[in-house]
């Protein structure tokens, strides 16, 4: 009940954040500009519109998750409202989870609106609704849930600027870690290879949620792959939230 209350409150607060509307505006603008960009290509113009649309949803969604998420906990600490909250019969993890679910709900609403604009643009160009695009958006949402958890983790012990930087680095590493696999193959057997393998296993692999290319090209994606990706996202999110709860539990606000 407490988590739900905090979540709804966080949602109401986040939905009024100006950053959200600014990013939403730029995302919508990027999608509309893709129609003009498509004129410059030769061949499949719909592909350009789909690629730019999905990239906009992913990029601006990530920025929303990071910029809003990193400020969620810090704002309460800065305004000293945290003291009022923790003095209530509420556990610290309930507060954190409430913030998390509130932002996730906000991202869901924003992503839904962006998807509607995106599908409308694709429909206007192709006279058909490609429902598979929503599969790519769904996994962008799974990725954003994980990034939100990371943003909240960092914001539970650091300032918004540093938290944003850490969360951004996490995202970049997450999209870069697949190349570690290539590097591991080239390293000769030894301590360095083991270290690289451990790093590859621990570091997040956000490419697991990237189905943009497959969806745009109409390639088949095995259901098993989708299930494993979703499970990976959820489990990693739970792990990050547990870490955040541990850190926040020990946090001294004075």
């Amino acid at each position, binding site marked *: 009940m407490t988590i739900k209350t905090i979540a709804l409150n966080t949602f109401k607060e986040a939905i009024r954040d100006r950053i959200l509307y600014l990013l939403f505006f730029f995302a919508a603008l990027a999608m509309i500009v893709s129609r003009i*960009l498509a004129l*410059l*290509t*030769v*061949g*499949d113009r719909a*592909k*350009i519109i789909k*690629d*730019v649309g*999905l*990239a906009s949803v*992913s*990029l601006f969604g990530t920025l929303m998750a990071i910029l809003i998420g990193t400020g969620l906990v810090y704002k309460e600490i800065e305004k000293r409202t945290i003291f009022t909250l923790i003095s209530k019969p509420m556990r610290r993890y309930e507060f954190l989870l409430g913030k998390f679910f509130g932002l996730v709900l906000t991202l869901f609403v924003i992503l839904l609106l962006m998807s509607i604009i995106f599908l409308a643009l694709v429909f206007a160009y192709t006279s058909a609704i490609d429902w598979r695009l929503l599969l790519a958006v769904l996994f962008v949402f799974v990725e954003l849930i994980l990034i939100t958890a990371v943003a909240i983790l960092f914001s539970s012990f650091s300032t918004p600027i540093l938290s944003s930087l850490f969360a951004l680095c996490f*995202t*970049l590493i997450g*999209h*870069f870690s697949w*190349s570690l696999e290539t590097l591991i193959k080239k390293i000769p057997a030894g301590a360095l290879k083991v270290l690289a393998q451990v790093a590859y296993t621990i570091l997040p692999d*956000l*490419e697991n949620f*990237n189905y*943009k*290319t497959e969806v*745009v*090209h109409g*390639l088949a994606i095995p259901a098993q792959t989708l299930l494993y990706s979703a499970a990976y996202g959820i489990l990693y999110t739970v792990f990050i939230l547990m870490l955040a709860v541990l850190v926040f539990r020990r946090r001294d606000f004075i």
Partner: protein
Amino acid sequence: MGLKLRIDRIPRQKIPGSGIIYIPSGKYLKMATFGFSSLMADLVFIWAIQYFGNVDIPNRLDSFVHVFSIISELDPRYVDPYEVGALISLYDAKNIPLALRILDMGLAKNPDMWIFPLEAGHYAQIYKRDFPLAKEYYKKAMEIPGAPDIAKRLYANASFKAWDIKTAWETWLEVYDTAKEERLRKIASNNLYNIKATVDIRGLRSALEKHRAKYGRYPDRLSDIVRAGLLPYIPQDYDNKDYIYDPKTGEVKTAVIPWKR
């Protein structure tokens, strides 16, 4: 603002496309896209169209393979760059091997796409007049599931032009036996007629020249060649009709034009 306008008026020497030429291969660029490789491929392709379409840029085609291999690495399933790249190689650069190389790249990345070997076969046959090469490409195309039936017919035709008579004959026979439309059966039949006629007439002409070399003249009738022991028998066309023979010139031709049977 005034300063900016002033600076813009100062001519500055630029090397067009210099930025992209020094970018490493697509494999490493892909790492730097952070999950947006498909979008990056689109942007590089759009840039490439504007760049290579600008005839005022000197030596613009020097970096052609580099740019298109970048696009290929970023999004291997993106079909348009391979096709457009091959077209630019053919019509702009007048470089058929380059066009074939681009299409080979497309096929290597997309072994399930028949369009690449089909186009390559077309280029090899029409522009390079390399029929054995065209034959190989058409064979690759027709072996890919989902390839159109025309790939087999093109293969048969290229085989004939490459003088692989046995393959051409067998393939046209297969087309005839499996054709679902009368029109296709007619095409196969006409080609079988043409193959038989070409082989028969070659054999007859060779025997006629031997007769002329031996007796100083062409025989009065084709049957004279058999009597002279130069051929075991006189062949007939695919419709079991006799070939038309002109004893004055030694010319042998079919009774009908194959395509008008």
